[in-house]
């Protein structure tokens, strides 16, 4: 494998940025200047310094109050429960996460984010201790974001060294993707959406598609962060491991890259480029399919979900600033 395909995707992000940046500079935009390294920040510090983040957030969050929370979206942060079988340090970590959730209230943002969605019955989303990274959604049940998964995001992001901006992107992007991914199951269920293909992939593709509808700041953070997370957390799969209903992280990685590139081949076009003698991150044979894959999800969304979306509120959601500058690595 070429050396630049090994390890963190950061180098390739930089590469994609170089190419996209060139294109934008030609257009006189230069939107990627924000990618310069920001002062060092650790995930653990982000939780601990939640008050600082929120204070940074205040001006940005002030742009969303026109949106009323969707009354059909109910949220809850359940206090972490110690697991006797787990490392006691993990409980400490969960407690720190819980404190951050209490301050940042990300699920409150989700209530506003989903304001346009007309639901025939409530969806309750909670953060809870699961004893695993995921608690599968059961029809009519709760959507759960597990402390264990948030903890994993923290730990995976912690393996990124010398690139605090990318680390921040992984944390924020993956958390956002996780929430939308888990919510997708409930949306499919409540709206009675027919789902062809494995539902876990469908949830990924829907989440990725939704994230691509927003500004470059959001789509870049979410797509790059999620893809990087999948890349870093991938494991070796063999034999009956493939019986899992979830797809390997490496497969999810390419699915995200493809939806991103298919949705915006300019911003993400760098992934199909490579220095001479090396292979691009997104192989040409897959890249050529990505516009079709993106269009397929878009058409499915328009046919089966859009009828339940208030178009005026949708525009407000798209116009809102959902991440604070610090969360975007600025």
């Amino acid at each position: 494998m070429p050396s630049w395909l090994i390890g963190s995707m950061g180098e390739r992000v930089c590469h994609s940025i170089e190419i996209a940046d060139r294109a934008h500079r030609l257009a006189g935009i230069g939107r990627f200047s924000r990618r310069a390294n920001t002062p060092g920040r650790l995930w653990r510090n982000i939780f601990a310094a939640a008050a600082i983040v929120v204070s940074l957030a205040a001006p940005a969050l002030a742009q969303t109050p026109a949106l009323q929370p969707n009354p059909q979206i109910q949220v809850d942060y359940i206090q972490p429960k110690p697991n006797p079988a787990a490392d006691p340090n993990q409980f400490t970590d969960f407690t720190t996460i819980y404190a951050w959730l209490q301050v940042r209230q990300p699920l409150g943002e989700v209530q506003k984010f989903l304001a346009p969605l007309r639901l025939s019955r409530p969806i309750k989303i909670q953060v809870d201790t699961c004893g695993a990274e995921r608690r599968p959604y059961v029809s009519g049940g709760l959507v759960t974001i597990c402390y264990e998964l948030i903890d994993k995001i923290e730990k995976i992001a912690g393996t990124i060294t010398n690139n605090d901006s990318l680390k921040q992107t992984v944390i924020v992007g993956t958390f956002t993707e996780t929430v939308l991914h888990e919510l997708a199951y409930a949306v499919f269920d409540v709206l009675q959406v027919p789902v062809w293909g494995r539902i876990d992939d469908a949830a990924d593709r829907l989440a990725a598609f939704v994230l691509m509808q927003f500004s470059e700041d959001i789509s870049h953070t979410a797509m790059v962060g999620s893809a990087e997370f999948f890349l870093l957390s991938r494991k070796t799969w063999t034999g009956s491991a493939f019986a899992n209903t979830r797809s390997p992280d490496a497969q999810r990685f390419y699915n995200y890259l493809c939806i991103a590139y298919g949705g915006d081949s300019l911003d993400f076009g760098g992934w199909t480029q490579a220095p001479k003698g090396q292979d691009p991150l997104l192989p040409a044979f897959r890249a050529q399919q990505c516009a079709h894959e993106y269009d397929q999800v878009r058409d499915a969304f328009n046919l089966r979900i859009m009828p339940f979306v208030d178009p005026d509120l949708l525009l407000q959601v798209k116009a809102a600033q959902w991440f604070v500058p610090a969360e975007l690595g600025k």
Partner: protein
Amino acid sequence: MNVLKLAAALTILLAVQAVSLAPARADDCLPDPGPKYQPIQGLDGSGYPICYFQPNDTNKSAYTALQSRHILEVYAQFLSPLRLPHPLTLVALNCQPDFHSDSPFYSSADRALHFCYEWYNDVLQAAPTATTTQGVTRANVITGMWAGTLLHETGHAMFDMLDVPVFGREEDAADEVAAFIALQFNKDVQRTIIKGFAYFWQMAAQNGEDPPTVDDPNPPQDVIQRCFSDPLCAYSDVHGTASQRLYNTLCLGYGGDPDTFKDFVQMGWLPQTRAADCDREYHQLEFAFAKTILPFIDPQMRAKVQSTPWLLPTEMQ
């Protein structure tokens, strides 16, 4: 099948999408040499024109086998309840060297299912010469793989022509079409197709078609082959891995008819952890089919198709 063929299959898909294929012209199609096909009464397959192209010397035996079975004529009638907005042409052809692949494919460019003569020989080679420990026979694999492949490619055609909303990965969805339709027939048909299709992917996995776990010290020169020899890049395929396709197929069989397929779990072919989810997976599929494809199926003709013996007893042994 091997990695090279799989990679070539990807190439062909891209080529087909990029290049407009000329619709099959009646003049290019071989006439039925006889004995003539005797159509099943009451099933109008006119929406599915057929064409056997002249086989090359290598493919003559495949042509003879397929044509004497009237596989395209039979399949056209099988599809008669499906009301597509455009004719769907069924073509048997030499895929090598023009398409660099042995694998059948659907092309939206000419609205045709292309069945490669080469595929016939590939399936014969993949089929076991003796019954396997899972009770899979040579006939199961030959019949199951052919039927499964026809149905899989028809799935792509339906997604395209009927504008079916596909939220998941299309290749998985096409496998779901194949399994679901197979499960609408009697138990012998169900078991033949599900077992044969699943076994094929098991063999593919055993022959090294799952993504590698270590770097190739001597990566191939060809860019696609090099990708498929890489532990990360191999996952960029639009298809699931061979093992994923194996377990997906077993799961839908078990989910659709636990009694008929409980031996899959008992013998450990389908892990219990996955089996627990199969009822949900099958019902997800059943719901999707009912909402998006069933409205285009004529109920009377469907009933007739379901009661027609499409497979010969020897093909289900």
